């Protein structure tokens, strides 16, 4: 791939970072390691379950006992193909496994089985919606399958390292993007989108806390319109927030070095989540010589095109297709559709609420009220105290005119605290909306009698109308139907 083919995007003006010598553009590419959702490991029959006792999920193959041989797990291959299809990528019907040789105590074989020259998935691309409301295209360079390493624990002894091989040999997909990302926020949006896709596909659980997804972030900076600068790779960043932080910090660091007359050395860096900084791990010159060569214990992986089509036929609806459908079928705005379809769980929640109801209202309640409340309480949707059915029940009461929007918000707040159904709260608290014109008329008549001066004012100053609405609502305990109040007030005050 030529520089021109690689360098296809320019950052927006507002994404440029101002420096002493002018504006700088940030260039980012991500290598995301996603753990393949499978029961057994990539080349052995040991379990992939998280949280087992040390070395419990380890086969003789994983421990690299003498004479042990790898046999590939069909499910892992299928999952890689599925992911490739989900990223609109080319599936390579011929791929191969190579050995990447280096010594480390949590790498029992002394090599990692990976795919170097001939990966299972080739080029693809995904649209990514950013916080700025823009949709950018991030190209995928490749996806390859490889083995995870074990875990080294350094803090159990001052002089020794403890090694647990439970993760050793678990299948990873390394999803490599082109350098099409131009800010920390975009990097985070890309990772969010990627996570949504693999979760929808069921190929990775996307659980970043358990390390199921982690990213190596390649960052460089340049003056707009000039060739790419030298990049640094930040290893193992494990949350959306950290990815954005790491990019922003690293860009600022590189800009400072360059503006100081220095040069950027190609190196591997580590991100410190506590300080938000990156530090050098090793330079390119110290980069290990991995001596890749085709693994002679394995044969080339040849995929039957028929099998690929079978896998394609079982692909679930992906976030983008869902978003388009939500816009068409439910009439949602692009933004609401994007949020509602962005995550498998959210989409299921939304469709449960929207079923047979006003979908726009459902989207509003979900994306604004519920997500707002959950964010404040730092809860995931799965832990929401209000279920989709309960939120639907609340919307039903609004639609039937039993409660108005203002009361609905109060009811919703109580639902969040108690987990009760909306109808139960409305009934118990007597919050049903007053649509009885007689009662509202009486309230208005009483107000007119008590405030004759305000009647005249209302005619002159349209703003005063708001005061009358407020007073009427107050007099009816907030339960009056606002539309009825409006009509009656206009009539009785004689305003147009």
């Amino acid at each position, binding site marked *: 791939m030529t520089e021109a083919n690689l360098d296809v995007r320019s950052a927006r003006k507002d994404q440029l970072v101002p420096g002493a010598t002018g504006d700088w553009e940030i260039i980012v590419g991500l290598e995301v390691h996603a753990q393949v959702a*499978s*029961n*057994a490991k990539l080349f*052995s*029959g*040991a*379990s992939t379950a998280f949280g087992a*006792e*040390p*070395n*419990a*999920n*380890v*086969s*003789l*193959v*994983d*421990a690299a006992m003498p004479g042990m041989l790898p*046999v*590939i*797990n*069909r*499910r*892992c*291959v299928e999952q890689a193909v599925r992911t490739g299809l989900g990223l609109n990528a080319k599936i390579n019907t011929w791929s*191969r496994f190579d050995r990447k040789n280096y*010594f*480390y*105590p949590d790498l029992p074989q002394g090599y990692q089985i990976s795919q170097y020259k001939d990966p299972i998935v080739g080029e693809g691309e995904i649209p990514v919606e950013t916080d700025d409301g823009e949709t950018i295209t991030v190209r995928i360079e490749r996806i390859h399958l490889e083995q995870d390493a074990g875990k*080294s*624990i*350094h803090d*159990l*002894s*001052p*002089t*020794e*390292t*403890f*090694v*647990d*091989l439970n993760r050793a040999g678990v299948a990873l997909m390394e999803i490599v993007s082109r350098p099409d990302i131009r800010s920390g926020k975009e990097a985070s949006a890309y990772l969010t989108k990627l996570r949504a896709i693999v979760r929808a596909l069921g190929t990775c659980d996307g659980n970043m806390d358990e390390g199921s997804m982690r990213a190596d972030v390649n960052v460089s900076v340049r003056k707009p319109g000039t060739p790419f600068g030298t990049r640094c790779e930040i290893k193992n960043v494990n949350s959306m927030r950290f990815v954005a932080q790491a990019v922003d910090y690293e860009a600022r660091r590189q800009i400072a070095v360059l503006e100081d007359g220095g040069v950027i050395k190609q190196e591997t860096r580590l991100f410190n989540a506590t300080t938000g900084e990156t530090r050098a*791990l090793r330079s390119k010159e110290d980069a290990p*010589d991995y*001596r890749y060569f*085709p693994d*002679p214990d*394995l*044969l*080339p*992986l*040849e995929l039957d095109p028929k099998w690929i089509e079978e896998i394609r036929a079982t692909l679930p609806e992906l976030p983008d297709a869902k978003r388009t459908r939500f816009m068409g079928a439910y009439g949602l705005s692009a933004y609401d559709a994007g949020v509602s379809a962005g995550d498998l769980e959210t989409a299921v929640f939304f469709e449960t609420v929207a079923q047979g109801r006003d979908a726009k209202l459902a989207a509003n309640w979900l994306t604004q009220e519920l997500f707002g409340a959950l964010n404040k309480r730092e809860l995931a949707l799965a832990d929401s105290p209000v279920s989709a059915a309960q939120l639907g029940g609340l919307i039903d009461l609004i639609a039937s005119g039993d409660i108005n929007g203002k009361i609905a918000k109060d009811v919703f707040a109580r639902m969040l605290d108690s987990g009760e159904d909306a109808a139960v709260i409305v009934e118990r608290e007597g919050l049903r909306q007053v649509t009885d014109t007689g009662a509202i008329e009486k309230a208005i008549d009483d107000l007119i009698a008590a405030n004759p001066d305000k009647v005249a004012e209302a005619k002159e100053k349209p703003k005063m109308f708001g005061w009358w609405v407020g007073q009427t609502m107050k007099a009816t305990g907030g339960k009056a139907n606002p539309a009825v109040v409006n009509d009656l007030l206009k009539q009785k005050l004689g305003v147009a």
Partner: protein
Amino acid sequence: MAIDENTVRRVAHLARLALPEARVAPMAAELNGILAWIEQLNEVDIEGVAPMTSAVATPLPMREDVVTEGGDARKVLANAPKSEDGFFVVPKVVE
């Protein structure tokens, strides 16, 4: 392509083999002897030949996604020079 002493040191380190300084020069000579003999491969016309990585021409067999192994840390640790609480214990790794 003769191997110099620095290359011998670099390769020995890559292979994690301690090579006493006194052995570096003789090893370079030995390796160069072998490589000089190997050089005759440059005579062979390999134009358009696909590299042969295996003598087997069948497709890669695949296993079903079933847990069939593991569950016995003792078996895995049975020959370990040092282990504790189910872990392999190795000299301190410094990053």
